[in-house]
């Protein structure tokens, strides 16, 4: 029997079409990649987290204007400064010295080569902090579960660029991807309190953060006690500003239990107690 090439082609096309309709539903369930609603997730799978870390590091490199240790230098494993800056840590002279990863030139080649490298430790300022944002945006797209990306991005948007609206939108996106993150809720509260001057919403968000914190397993609570301290100390300041000194004292006492510096908090408690004592209870006099 002789079969024409055309009929073979038609037959194969029909077979491919039939199999495709039958197999499409099955293959969809084979891999979680196909279910990903993110282009990067579909392209890279879990490998995208590696890229996300790299882009997050790129944001830190930009923050230092290129003065940054490589994996071969002694300071390569230290905490990223964009993270410590977002936690409100100011750099001391000692920190600056520690970050001099280059040290003395090792030989004439190294000494001459430094003419062509950035050897000054500087940080972005005067609204140039915006330059780190593309890398944070990419890191968030590649790994939506990396919480620091949202908190750091929101901090720079709010604190250095005065863009509280964008900071809130970025944090809301982070919260949709990480609904139980008290770190994001903490930063969101700061956006409401410091950026929008909306104490009521800040209080609600921080209270929700505390609730979420206590939903964590005890071991994780111990590890994350600094975020708890941040939440309760900010709530204490908020209550202090609102004149609720009693509530502020209660929050500070809660902070003392986890704080590495309970003495400093005690001073604040003492001051609040003075303020509370100075409040003379108003007793209505007789009108008639």
């Amino acid at each position, binding site marked *: 029997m002789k079969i024409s090439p055309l009929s073979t082609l038609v037959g194969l096309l029909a077979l491919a079409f039939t199999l495709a309709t039958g197999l499409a539903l099955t293959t969809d369930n084979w891999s979680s990649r196909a279910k990903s609603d993110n282009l990067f997730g579909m392209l890279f799978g879990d490998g995208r987290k590696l890229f996300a870390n790299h882009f997050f590091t790129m944001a830190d490199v930009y923050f230092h204007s290129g003065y940054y240790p490589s994996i071969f230098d002694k300071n390569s494993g230290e905490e990223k400064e964009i993270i410590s800056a977002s936690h409100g840590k100011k750099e001391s002279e000692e920190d600056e010295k520690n970050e001099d990863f280059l040290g003395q030139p090792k030989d004439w080649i190294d000494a001459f080569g430094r003419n062509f490298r950035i050897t000054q430790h500087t940080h972005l300022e005067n609204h140039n902090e915006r330059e780190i*944002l593309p890398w944070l945006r990419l890191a968030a797209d590649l790994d939506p579960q990396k919480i620091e990306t949202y908190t750091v991005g929101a901090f720079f948007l709010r604190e250095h660029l005065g863009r509280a609206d964008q900071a809130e939108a970025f944090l809301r996106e982070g919260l949709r991807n990480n609904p139980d993150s008290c770190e994001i809720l903490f930063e969101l509260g700061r956006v409401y309190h410091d950026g929008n001057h909306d104490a009521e919403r800040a209080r609600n968000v921080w209270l929700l953060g505390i609730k979420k914190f206590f939903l964590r397993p005890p071991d994780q609570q111990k590890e994350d006690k600094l975020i708890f301290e941040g939440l309760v100390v900010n709530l204490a300041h908020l209550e202090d500003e609102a004149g609720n000194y009693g509530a502020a004292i209660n929050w500070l006492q809660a902070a003392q239990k986890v704080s590495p510096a309970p003495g400093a908090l005690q001073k604040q408690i003492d001051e609040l107690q003075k303020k509370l004592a100075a409040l003379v209870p108003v007793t209505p006099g007789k009108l008639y």
Partner: protein
Amino acid sequence: MSKIFALAAVVIKELYRRKDFYVLFVLTALLTLAAGAVNFFHDDKIVRYVKDICLLLIWVSALVISVVTAARQIPAEREARTIFPLLAKPVSRWQVIVGKFLGCWLATGVALVVFYFFFAAVTGSKEQIWPWGAYLEAVWMQWAMLAIVIAMVLLGSIFFAAPSSTSTITLVVVGGILLLGTHLKVIALQQPEPMQFILTVVYFVMPHLEWYDLRDFVVYDMGIVPLRAVALATLYAAAWSGIFLLLAWFGFRRKNLTT
């Protein structure tokens, strides 16, 4: 000298007749414009990432153009047997080597100028500043580095069998130097003997191509490198190019062109 320039002119003509440069330029332009069109957090003043991406593409493109162009020069002449009428002109073998080198180097320079004009136009339109001093230094240093690379490729093309193997090996070596050159001493110090000794020797005898990469100065607006350092680096590039060209000439002088 006129023979050398005549040989160089042929190489330059070859570059603009081939599609390599156009393809790489269009690719660089498209990727840069696409990156520049993205809006992050509704802030249109963000520009450094565009500079970074564009300069990286320029570096990769220029490297590919120079290596691929230089790698095929002498093997192509041999394969097409045009090397015999060329040497019968009479053109000496050292003139062939120098002419081919000069042609590749000038052609790469023309390509670099086009690339950097595009770079300046795109980034300047975003940030409204044109630090020409930094751009000129960056172009000059990159061009000086490419002189070493082209000379290295010509040397490789005398000894390796095919242009593809010359290109691959050179790209691996140049990529390795650019990535690890600065850190090789640190890596060496962390190794046990005899690896420590071997890596230290490699560190001192290899051409330090990483010096010529001034992208960070352009991206982070760090001003210009002292001119004395640039002049010394240029001298260093000339010395290394000379070494590779001499070695290529030694090899080419003894080369049997009929096999």
